[in-house]
Each structure stands twice: as structure tokens, then as C-alpha cells.
């Protein structure tokens, strides 16, 4: 996935001279995850810029660059390091189009490596999507496959609106049969995809939890469950129709994500599914999420993250008999 993301930026920069990559360590080092590897060498330091270490300054400068007609792609290095930039994100990036009645859209892509499962220490593993999806004016997308990493990043850079591009760190090194010489067609932002068809219940998920859900779906076959798995790919806009169609067919739904449950995206999704599928549901919409705790230290994270067993236990609870 890492290579696909690099390739997406490289192709975008080659096609459009207004695309600029910027952030801490993105130049000479190629980023701490090497996602921007080689870009400074190929396009020069003016187009792949090592900035001072200051997230508000990075995003704030990107706002000014976008005001002047550039398409900045900003790297935030780690989920929890993006928080100093929140005022810029919420007060300016998300609102500039609205404040100016459409006269000044900001085509900024904000890449945020997020989530746990890599043994990272404190402040390196937050699932911060709830903050972003609660902010009108931002698109929020997150790829779970190598192809989507490429396609969604291209679509994000091409978007005239700001996009928070959440990169599941633990999938950076996932390998797949992806041929960089022939990148897949770019999927638009806002389309969910049924990754596995099934008949007994729908698992609704995204990003780092997709592989876990697919594994759970395989394991569930032994219990007699045929699970459908929907990958949201985009949290804002939320592709309600694909989700609703699936749940109406299966009659049962579980939302799975790493972020804390209370006020997390799963709460919103469960509410929407309930509103639109009430008469089709055989059981309440359930959630499997991270606990409502600060992200735990590496030696405890396996107890916090939604795993196959917890998903299967929850699926078993869908045999609702009250």
C-alpha cells in the first residue's frame, strides 16, 4: 500500500504542476513511513518540501498556497500529531468555500497515518476519524486495499474540496496483486463497496478493520453464518444506499471500527441504518469498536482493538430473541 500511495502522489505531481507535497520529513528522508520517498528528488524541493515542525503552520501555509491556486498535499506524520492543526482545519480549511460563497474553494489533501496495531507508543496510534467526520466541509476517506490507496488518493488530490485522507498504518506493508504499471481506474469519493457477499448479516467497516472483518467472515462460515462485508471507503460522504441495500437484504448488521465507540462513526451509521431499515431488521444494529479509553500502550493494544473473536461473539448476539 505504501508504494501505491507514493505512486499516486508521483503521478498526480507529474500530471499537474500545481500539486505540491509538504510536511515534516517528507523531503530528504521521504517521510517517516517513506510514503513520499523519491518525490523531492524527482520534482525538486520546491514541490516536495520539508517544512519546519509545526502542524498548524504547515496546514495554515497550505491554505495560503491553495488560495493562490496550488493543490497542496499535506502529510501529518501521525494521527495524534495532527491535533495542533485542528484550528486551521476546522476554522479555515473546512469553512473557506462556505465563508466565501464558493469563491475560494481549498483543494487541500491532508494525509493522516492513523490507527493502531503496529506496536506504536503513546500518541502514535489514535483513530481520530470522529473529529473529522463531525466537521462539515471536509471529505473523509480511508482506503483498505492497495488499489483504493492509489485510486482514492488520486481522487482526493483531484478534488476541489479539502479531503482528510486517513491512511491505515498497519496496512502500509500489506501486499496485494497490484501492478503499478497499470493503475486501476480512479473510484470517486463517496462510494462504498461490497467486498464479500453474504446472506445472514452485514459487517459494515472501513480502513484497518476491513481485513479483520473479511477474516471473521471466513471464520463465521463454520458457525453457519454467511456474512456480507461492506467497505465504506469514504466516511464523508457516507454511501448510505449501498449500506442500506445490503442490510435490507441480510436483515442484520454490525458496524466494526477501531475508533472509540461512544460518539464514533459507528453510532451514526447504526442510527442511519436503523432509521432506514427498521422493518427489515431481525435484531438491533450492533457495534464492535475500540473501548472508550485513551489508546493503550503497545503491550495491551490487542485487548483494545476489535479482533476476529469479538466480531464473532457480536455476530452470535444477532440471534435476537427478546
Amino acid at each position, binding site marked *: 500500500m505504501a508504494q501505491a500511495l507514493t505512486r499516486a502522489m508521483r503521478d498526480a505531481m507529474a500530471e499537474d504542476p500545481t500539486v505540491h507535497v509538504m510536511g515534516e520529513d517528507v523531503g530528504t528522508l521521504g517521510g517517516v513511513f517513506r510514503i513520499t520517498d523519491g518525490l523531492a528528488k524527482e520534482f525538486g524541493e520546491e514541490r516536495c518540501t520539508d517544512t519546519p515542525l509545526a502542524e498548524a503552520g504547515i496546514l*495554515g*501555509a497550505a491554505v*495560503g*498556497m491553495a*488560495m493562490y491556486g*496550488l493543490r497542496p498535499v499535506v502529510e501529518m506524520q501521525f494521527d495524534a500529531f495532527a491535533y495542533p492543526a485542528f484550528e*486551521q482545519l476546522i476554522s479555515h480549511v473546512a469553512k473557506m*468555500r*462556505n465563508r466565501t460563497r464558493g469563491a475560494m474553494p481549498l483543494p487541500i489533501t491532508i494525509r493522516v497515518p492513523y490507527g493502531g496495531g503496529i506496536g506504536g507508543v503513546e500518541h502514535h496510534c489514535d483513530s481520530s476519524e470522529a473529529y473529522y467526520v463531525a466537521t462539515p466541509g471536509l471529505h473523509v476517506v480511508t482506503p483498505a486495499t492497495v488499489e483504493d490507496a492509489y485510486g482514492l488518493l488520486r481522487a482526493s488530490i483531484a478534488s476541489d474540496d479539502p479531503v482528510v485522507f486517513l491512511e491505515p498504518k498497519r496496512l502500509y506493508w500489506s501486499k496485494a496483486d497490484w501492478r503499478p504499471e497499470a493503475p486501476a481506474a480512479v473510484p470517486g469519493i463517496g462510494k462504498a463497496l461490497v467486498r464479500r457477499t453474504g446472506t445472514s448479516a452485514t459487517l459494515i467497516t472501513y480502513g484497518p478493520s476491513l481485513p479483520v472483518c473479511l477474516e471473521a467472515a471466513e471464520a463465521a462460515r463454520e458457525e453457519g453464518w454467511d456474512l456480507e462485508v461492506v467497505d465504506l471507503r469514504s466516511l464523508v460522504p*457516507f454511501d448510505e444506499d449501498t449500506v442500506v441495500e445490503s442490510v435490507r437484504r441480510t436483515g442484520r448488521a454490525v458496524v466494526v471500527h477501531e475508533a472509540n465507540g461512544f460518539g464514533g462513526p459507528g453510532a451514526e451509521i447504526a442510527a442511519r441504518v436503523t432509521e432506514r431499515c427498521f422493518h427489515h431488521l431481525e435484531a438491533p444494529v450492533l457495534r464492535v469498536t475500540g473501548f472508550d479509553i485513551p489508546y493503550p500502550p503497545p503491550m495491551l493494544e490487542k485487548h483494545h482493538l476489535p479482533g476476529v473473536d469479538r466480531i464473532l461473539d457480536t455476530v452470535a448476539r444477532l440471534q435476537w430473541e427478546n
Partner: protein
Amino acid sequence: MTVQELPGAGASHRSTQPPAWSPRTDAAPLLPDPEPYRVLGTEAADGLDPELMRRCYAELVRGRRYNAQATALTKQGRLAVYPSTVGQEACEIAAALVLEEQDWLFPSYRDTLAAVARGLDPVQALTLLRGDWHTGYDPREHRIAPLSTPLATQLPHAVGLAHAARLRGDDVVALAMVGDGGTSEGDFHEALNFAAVWQAPVVFLVQNNGFAISVPLAKQTAAPTLAHKAVGYGMPGRLVDGNDIAAMHEVLSEAVRRARAGGGPTLIEAVTYRMEAHTNADDATRYRGDAEVEAWKAHDPVDLLERELTARGIIDEAAIQAVRDDAEAMAAALREGMNADPVVDPMDLFAHVYAEQTDRLREQAAMLRAELEAEDQS
């Protein structure tokens, strides 16, 4: 037993040479003058350009009248709120006058007068404060960024825009305005640091008007002056009398020229005073005494220039009257523009959130439309 005689002491002396490192030694020229720079009432005023000063005078008088009219509009309920710049007009006017057409102004919420002096229609400048939409103009058309209500957050935008323009080879300078309170914000620091590292063509103008709402400068910073902060970033700091428009124009022009020539950013502290309350919602008598206000009244920016120009024969009674008549006409036009009830379209709530509306917004827009139709029918 001395330290040298301690067992093992000799060994620790072998590799004590630290790696070579030395700080920049060219900091002295970056330091501000000990006193605010002044022109009016000094010998330097002999070199004034009469034409420029007549223009400055006319703009100052208009600016004072604009402030009075905007304050009156809040009393009539036409503006929700107005942060006055009475006493600070010289800073506002000079900031607008030193910019070329292609340059950009980054104002704070208090700087509507600078936007007006740059040529923006006063009604458009006050739309935010009237409350019919957040920004009443197209920023690209006037090269005036939206008025920023969060403090100092517009400063990194100025840096980014100036940087982008330079990357494109365009001759553009960005001038960003902030108050004394805003210099305590993190974005102020980050913007100055970025600008200096990138050598971006930016001028930072701090209007030190004495108070951040009620908090005086002494409780805002322990720095000798706000201009001294510049040296920490590696850019020149300039201290200037913010009520002296000749000094303001000269110092700002020099900074703009320097930025345009590739010399990088400058931090300017204009020492001035907010004669009125923070806004009409504020009670200034709770945090400052009359004596202080009176002392500053004697150093009024309009009077200061009027005295100098009259003494030098650059303006006379007739010229002063003509300028006042012009200001009256501006105020009348502003009153008229503001007395017309703005037409607001509720459906605009959904029109400019995204380039393309999401399903969610379409659904909510339909709900509002139905509510509006129901209201119409009842």
C-alpha cells in the same frame, strides 16, 4: 584533594572538545530602534511628499468618519457588532496604501477600514458584521483575504500565499495584520518562523493598541517590545509610532520593498491606542482610566497630520473642508447601503459546503424547503 587529583579525573579530560557549532552573529541589524520611529513633528517631516500626504489626510478623515458611521449603525441595530479603529486609522490606511494592485491584504476582524482603504465597498466590508454572510466579497477579485475572527490564524495563510506566488515567479507581497493579543497565539509564532525560513515576501503588521479586549500588554508579553520578537525568527523588527501616518507609510513601504526584492519578511510593531471599547459589547471603563485615554487623545493621528500639513501650507481650510465633504458623502452612501434590508436565501445554507452537495445535505435542504413552503402557505 583537588578535582584534578580525583581518581580517573585525567581520563575524562581527553575528549572534552565539543563539536563545532556557533549561533548566527548578524542579529544586531534585526533589532528594533529603542523608540518608536516618528516623522510628524520632527525634522524628518521636511522630506514629506505633499501629494502623498494630502492623500493620506483625505483617507484618514474618511477613515475617522467611517468608524463613526459604523458605530452609529450598531446603535441602530444595522450591525450586530463593530470593533472600532478610532485612534488606529493611520495603521489601517498606511497598510492599504503601501500595497500594489497585485499584492494581498490579510486583515483581522478589526481591519475592515484597511479593506475599505484598499478599495473595497464599505457595505461589502461590513457584511460579516451585519450578519447576512460571513464574507461579503470575492477575495480573489480584491486580493483581500476573508476577515479572520480567530486570532492570528490568517498569518500562516499570508505566508503560504506569498510563498506560492514566489514559486510561480509572480511579483506579489502579502501584508498580514494582527493585534497585540494575537502575538501570543501559536499561529503567530508558526507564521513568522515559516516566513523567515522560506524568506517569503510577507510583511507582518502588529497594531499594538494597548489591550486584548481588557488585558493590557504587560500581561500579554514579557518581551521588551513586540518588535523584538522578530530577532528570534531571524527577520528585522521595526518599532513605529502607529498614530504617525508618515512614519507608518515609510516603514511599511520599506518592508514591502524589501519583501518584493527577495529580502524576506519584516515584523512591524505599530504603537497605537484603541480609543473606544473593544466592541459595543465591551465596557472599557472597567479596565482603564480616563487620564490614559485623554493622553492618547492629544496624540490623535488625524490631528497630528492636520497640524503638520497646515503648518507647512500643504493643506488649507478649503482643502480640509473638501476632504470632510467627501467623507460625509462616503458616510451617506454607507448609511444608505446599510439601510436596505439584505436579502438572504435560506437555501444558501447548503449551497457552498461542498463543490457537490452530499446526499445528506440534499436531504436536509429538502427538509428546509418543505418547512419554508409550509410557512408560506400558513
